[in-house]
């Protein structure tokens, strides 16, 4: 069953057409990855799904309903969690306060939610009282993902979680992403680190200049010579 569907979605920034009819679908329980070069429209796609941008054409359906025109702040309630590009820290707030912001619409105690996040990211428990702006890049990324999980979303949007992290941390973040998925959260993962993303995902879409140029099973794409040359930086012998 499709949890999220984009049909021919077009988005423009003024005269610039950032997305030219993108169609993707994500089924319940999947990890789907969206890969492509800088400026291909990956972040634009995520921002359109979470309501920060309005498409000029096409339809976005979540959980069987069109969510076109639903303001961003109401989509959290429907079950979309978004860890944005650049981590989107509230730098002057503590780690705890940042996490509480993730459950802004939630009334009552957050014991279970905190428990889940601190189990996934024990480091954040140590840093609970520290201002988010003073954390390292990896820790900030943990806050961003943990914060998005605080609303117990059905769909988690991750925008380049590996950006700017040391290789050891990249591997750790990706294994946690798999763990979150195994706990039952559907994930749409935007990445430039195509090798890791294709290893973790079940299906993948490749975006270039606002269009889907390839789609398929992640393992098939990872084997494809053209994909390997263009996105994995690996020359295959012919």
């Amino acid at each position, binding site marked *: 069953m499709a949890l999220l569907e984009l049909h021919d979605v077009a988005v423009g920034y003024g005269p610039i057409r950032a997305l030219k009819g993108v169609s993707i679908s994500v089924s319940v329980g999947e990890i789907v990855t969206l890969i492509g070069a800088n400026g291909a429209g990956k972040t634009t796609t995520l921002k359109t799904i979470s*309501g920060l941008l309005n498409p000029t054409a096409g339809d976005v359906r979540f959980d069987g309903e069109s969510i076109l025109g639903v303001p961003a702040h109401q989509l959290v309630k429907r079950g979309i969690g978004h860890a944005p590009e650049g981590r989107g*820290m509230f730098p*002057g707030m503590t780690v705890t306060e940042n996490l509480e*912001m993730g459950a802004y619409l939630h009334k009552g105690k957050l014991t279970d939610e905190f428990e889940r996040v601190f189990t996934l990211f024990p480091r954040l428990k140590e840093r609970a009282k520290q201002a988010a702006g003073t954390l390292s890049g990896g820790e900030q990324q943990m806050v961003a993902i943990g914060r998005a999980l605080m609303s117990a979303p059905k769909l988690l949007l991750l925008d380049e979680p590996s950006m700017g992290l040391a290789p050891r941390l990249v591997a750790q973040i990706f294994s946690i992403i798999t763990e979150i998925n195994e706990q039952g959260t559907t994930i749409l993962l935007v990445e430039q680190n195509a090798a890791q993303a294709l290893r973790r995902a079940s299906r993948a879409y490749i975006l270039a200049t606002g269009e889907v140029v390839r789609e398929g099973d992640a393992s098939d794409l990872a084997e494809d010579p053209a994909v390997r040359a263009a996105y994995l930086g690996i020359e295959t012998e012919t």
Partner: protein
Amino acid sequence: MTLGAIYALIALGYTLVYGVLRLINFAHSEVFMVGAFGSLFALHAIGFDTAHAPPHGLVLVGVLVLVVLAGMIASGVLAVVLERLAYRPLRKRGAPRLAFLITAIGASLLLQELFALRYGRNALAFPRLLARSTAFKIFGAPVQVPQIVVVASAIGMMLALDRFVANTKLGRGIRATAQDPETAQLMGVNINRIIVVTFILGGVLAGGAAGLYGIYVETIRYNGGFIYGIKAFTAAVLGGIGNVRGALLGGFALGLLENYGATVLGGEWKDVFAFTILVVVLMFRPTGLLGEQLGRSRA
């Protein structure tokens, strides 16, 4: 010190709105002015005019609370009306920042002239509510009862605001919006509601300041907000615009400094001294004494 408390309360309105919207609300001085008129009319409504003898005891406390509350309500309502009629339509259209600034100045002049037409260009007097009796002396300087009332009430209001911003859910929403409005929306924060709350808070504090001003200065005229508004703005910049505690510090610092300047150079130099401070701060420390904290600074 007493005027400093009033500057600080008004400065909070500039700082809160700037933190959330990156907008200097130049109509805020008129929000203050209208609050003072609100306080005066509330006194008239219960039959207090300049001929009335000062009240005593519980009646006095009741009247003082009424004056401050009336100012808060008048200013709070005006601040929300301004946001709805003047700023929100611009925001919806994604207007450039300059349009907001010009709108703010336009709204400011419009309000001044409306009040000038309706209530004349002369100052209106408040009835005396608190006798100018000396309560005690610090280093030989007399401290009068009205000064104590003004400073104590102002500090009370500031503490209430500080707690509100630090500890409530709405307060967290305000801080989140100031630090990263886009991510705040992703968390479920309704930015438009936060903006209205911010204008209400700023308005209520300016109204509280206006009530205290009425009690202390005992006169108001149509352009009476201008000089207080611009001094409060100076105070906000002095402390670091966008920073709640900076506004408090800036307000009190400005009040003390200009008083000092007036003593050394003579009373007519008071305003010159105050704005010289603004220029010097902008030259050497453009982010103010405490820097910007509510907003996007890195922790």
